């Protein structure tokens, strides 16, 4: 907005300045060019006299030049004509206001029009963008400097130590892992370097606890037994390796050792929940339930395989409901599933089982009855 005000002021000022001669009263036409020529020749004659006085020109030469100029002067004097037709000029002068208005409008339209086409007020970067760009530039400059130095002195452990966390922050995980490895081998093991190496190695591998990361965490755990994160990631390594029970035990151990208000508790709790259900699922020989991945996989199977998969899922649901009969939505789903699979007997058995589970719960019994009638299972 402020910018548009500035544009308006600039345009207005320039127009007032440029068109001022049109706003002033009409002037008589200036001296004709013939008169100008006469003036020039008169000046030349004066200069000639001055040159002769200074002795640069001899009298004979000066006389010859004077004669020539006088001849031109006479010719020019006869040439003093007025340009333009006076009648037409008067007409034009009456139109000065129109001209200046036209010019002003044209200038404003051309300028503003072009600015709307080519200008880029919207593209002016905000202060926040500038600050971010500055920071990024400062970091990349630092990186470039250190890289330059490391190119010439690759044994400079301090350089690797400095650049490794920067790489990590910039998302250049593999470079970070390499830099940490170099720093570790040149300067020895510290908890910061080990943690950095493990983290960047893991991130470079897309979240998998690599052997490199595991060995780093093992060293770190020895170096600094109070640290939580090596224990957590080592547990995660076990989980990823399929040793769910050991992982669960370790998660629980960490959870038990950590204070009530520790921020990472939610993380651990989530792991515990997940691993528990995984173990349960494995115990029942089926996955815990259809996940999005399962459904996507199902879509790719042929009909026979798909039927088998569905059966498997229904069985796992039934098994879960046998141990935990309090899950009304689960029972409703199971009954409907049996009905869809045309296993009427199973459906009625499940219905009876559910009714037994929910004796005294009028609401639940009403829902089960409604489902039974809608599926035509009788009452």
């Amino acid at each position, binding site marked *: 907005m402020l910018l548009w005000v500035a544009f308006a002021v600039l345009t207005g000022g320039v127009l007032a300045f440029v068109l001022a001669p049109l706003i002033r009263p009409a002037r008589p036409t200036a001296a004709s060019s013939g008169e100008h020529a006469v003036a020039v020749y008169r000046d030349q004659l004066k200069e000639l006299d001055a040159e002769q006085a200074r002795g640069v020109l001899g009298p004979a030469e000066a006389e*010859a*030049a004077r004669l020539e100029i006088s001849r031109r002067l006479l010719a020019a004097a006869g040439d003093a004509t007025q340009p333009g037709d006076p009648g037409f000029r008067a007409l034009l002068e009456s139109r000065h206001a129109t001209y200046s208005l036209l010019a002003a409008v044209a200038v404003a339209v*051309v300028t503003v029009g072009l600015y709307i086409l080519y200008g*880029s007020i919207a593209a002016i970067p905000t202060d926040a963008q500038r600050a971010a760009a500055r920071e990024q*530039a400062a970091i*990349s*400059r630092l990186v470039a400097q250190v890289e330059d130095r490391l190119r010439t002195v690759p044994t400079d452990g301090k350089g690797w130590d400095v650049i490794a966390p920067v790489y990590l922050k910039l998302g250049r995980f593999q470079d970070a892992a390499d830099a940490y490895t170099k720093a570790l081998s040149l300067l020895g093991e510290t908890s910061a370097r080990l943690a950095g190496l493990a983290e960047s190695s893991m991130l470079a591998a897309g979240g998998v606890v690599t052997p490199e990361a595991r060995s780093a965490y093992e060293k770190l755990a020895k170096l600094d037994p109070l640290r939580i994160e090596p224990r957590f990631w080592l547990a995660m390594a076990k989980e990823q390796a399929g040793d769910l029970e050991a992982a669960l035990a370790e998660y629980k151990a960490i959870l038990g050792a950590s204070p009530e208000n520790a921020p990472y508790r939610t993380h651990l709790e989530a792991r515990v929940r997940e691993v528990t259900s995984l173990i349960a699922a494995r115990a029942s020989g089926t996955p815990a339930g259809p996940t999005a991945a399962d459904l996507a996989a199902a879509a790719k199977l042929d009909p026979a395989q798909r039927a088998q998969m569905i059966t498997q899922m229904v069985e796992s649901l039934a098994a879960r409901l046998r141990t935990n009969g309090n899950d009304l939505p689960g029972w409703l789903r199971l009954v409907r599933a049996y009905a869809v699979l045309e296993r009427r007997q199973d459906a009625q058995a499940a219905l009876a089982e559910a009714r037994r589970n929910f004796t005294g719960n009028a609401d639940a019994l009403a829902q089960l009855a409604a489902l039974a009638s809608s599926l035509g299972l009788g009452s």
Partner: protein
Amino acid sequence: MIVEFGHFALLLALAVALVQMVLPALGARTGDANLMRVGEPAALAQLWLLTTAFAALTYAYVTSDFSVENVWANSHTDKPLIYRISGVWGNHEGSMLLWVLILAVFGAAVAIFGANLPWTLRANVLAVQAAIAVAFLVFIVFASNPFTRIPLQPEGRGLNPILQDPALAIHPPLLYAGYVGLSMAFSFAVAALIEGRIDAAWARWVRPWTLAAWIFLTLGIAMGSWWAYYELGWGGWWFWDPVENASFMPWLAATALLHSAVVMEKREALKVWTILLAILAFSLSLIGTFLVRSGVLTSVHAFAVDPRRGVFILMILVVLIGGALALYARRAPYLRQGGLFAPISREGALVLNNVLLTVGCGTVFVGTLYPLALESITGDKISVGPPYFNSTFAPLMVPLLLALPLGPMLAWKRGDVPGALQRLLTAAVLSLLALVVTAALARRGPWLAPFAVALGVWVAAGAVCEWASRIKLFSASVEEALRRAANLPRSAYGGMLAHAGVGVMVIGIAATSAWQSEVVLTMKPGERAEIAGYELTFRDVSPRRGPNYQEQVGLLTVSQGGSAVTELHPSKRTYDAPRQTTSEAGIHAALSGDLYAVLGDEVAGSDGAWVIRLYFNPLVRLIWIGAIIMSLGGLLSLSDRRLRIGAPRRARRRPEAATVPAE
């Protein structure tokens, strides 16, 4: 904020230029004084607006605003401040902005200093200047806008390292001031053609502006040549490169124009020819701009290249040059012819100068554009190199240089050659002496070289002889001579100085072309080499860190006859952004010439052996010293604002048959 304000100012300048193109011309046509007067404030407003735009772009460069595409593409925060500023015109868009800014400076000069011009002439001149401005502003706004934005980038891509040099900071602005300065002569010529009449004040106006442009061009070309000499590392100073020719052609035309404008101012002769030359000189500037900016040439100089834009500039060329020449063809026959003069006269000598310079310009033109024309028609790529120019252009310059000292010795209107030659006897003797001495000293080299040196001595000594004879140095008393020397107008001194500069330059060119010596060696630390009587010892190469580059600096100690002379530090630089390598020559300047060393590459697999090129360029500095002397002469003449009148020699009898029409 500031950048957008600059962009808006640029667009407003285009709108104001449109007003300046239409209203004053309309006023001149209808005799409406108010409309004519619009030209002056419009020209001043344009200067102000374009200065604002240029300042805004400079601000973006200095503050490294990488949301501006032009800044991002050509700058870098690590670049030293001076190269961030010179980077503004070190690229296509910025250099075009500089071009129109200089155009506006000249336009404003007409508005400020033109009070004594006839009103209609001034109005028409301003209208023509505005037309040129409109053409180039449209080009800038639509095809090469320096204010285009991109999403903010953290860092710029940097400027071509070859261009990161102090000389580059000055070379283009000087050259552009020269190119664009010739637009004044063009505008005056077209205005005179529009009016159908050449005013008495015409030449008085055109000559100083042409002179100013010529000084800028001379310095700009010399600077470019000097820069190429020490930066490109080939030890040469002129390559007949098309881009060099692009600046040399306007220079030749401007030199011719300068001389014919003198005739016109002093003698009111050669009017129609001067008008044509004025059009041609600026047309060649435009062609030069086209050649460099359109990217039709691929050469060491054409850094800012974008073929898309070529068509646009070509259209500007066709409209401006074609329009002016068409107007000339229509109107020139009606212009009043100038005064008469005999073939042997000062005027006649200047006509010879004009003929030789324009023909020389023509040969350069053909040599520069023929390969382009051939390529566009047949697709064959040929290159026209120094052999062509040496065998066409150089022979044309020989008669020009031979006649050069003679011209100023002849009287206006009618001259006599024997009398003039008599006064040049000293110069002739000196030149013969130079011939004998150089031929005796130089036991090798082309046989023509001593003659070329003698020619240079003839021109330089001729200028001194002219001065001596003008002040009657040996024919009158000492007091009389001193008085005459003091009274001689500065313009006369300027002319003589410029001619002496030509002579000095010719000596330099002849010597360095004929007797340059060159050695290419592989040297290990401690090894020695010899060139032109110097003994060089290669010491070592060590790394060094500059503000935005890493360099390998070689160290060579130089001795002569057993005593140490100097150390040379040729280096190879690798810039950070963009990653490019340049070589910096190590140069030792002595009276007899330059010792010039270039560090090549390290020889792979050999411990510490480097390729080193050594040159000895005898008297090479005289080339640039000559150019500076020429420019000083121009400045001296420019400072003399007195009217110029050439007093004719009166005929003893009436030699009607001996006079010829001026054109």
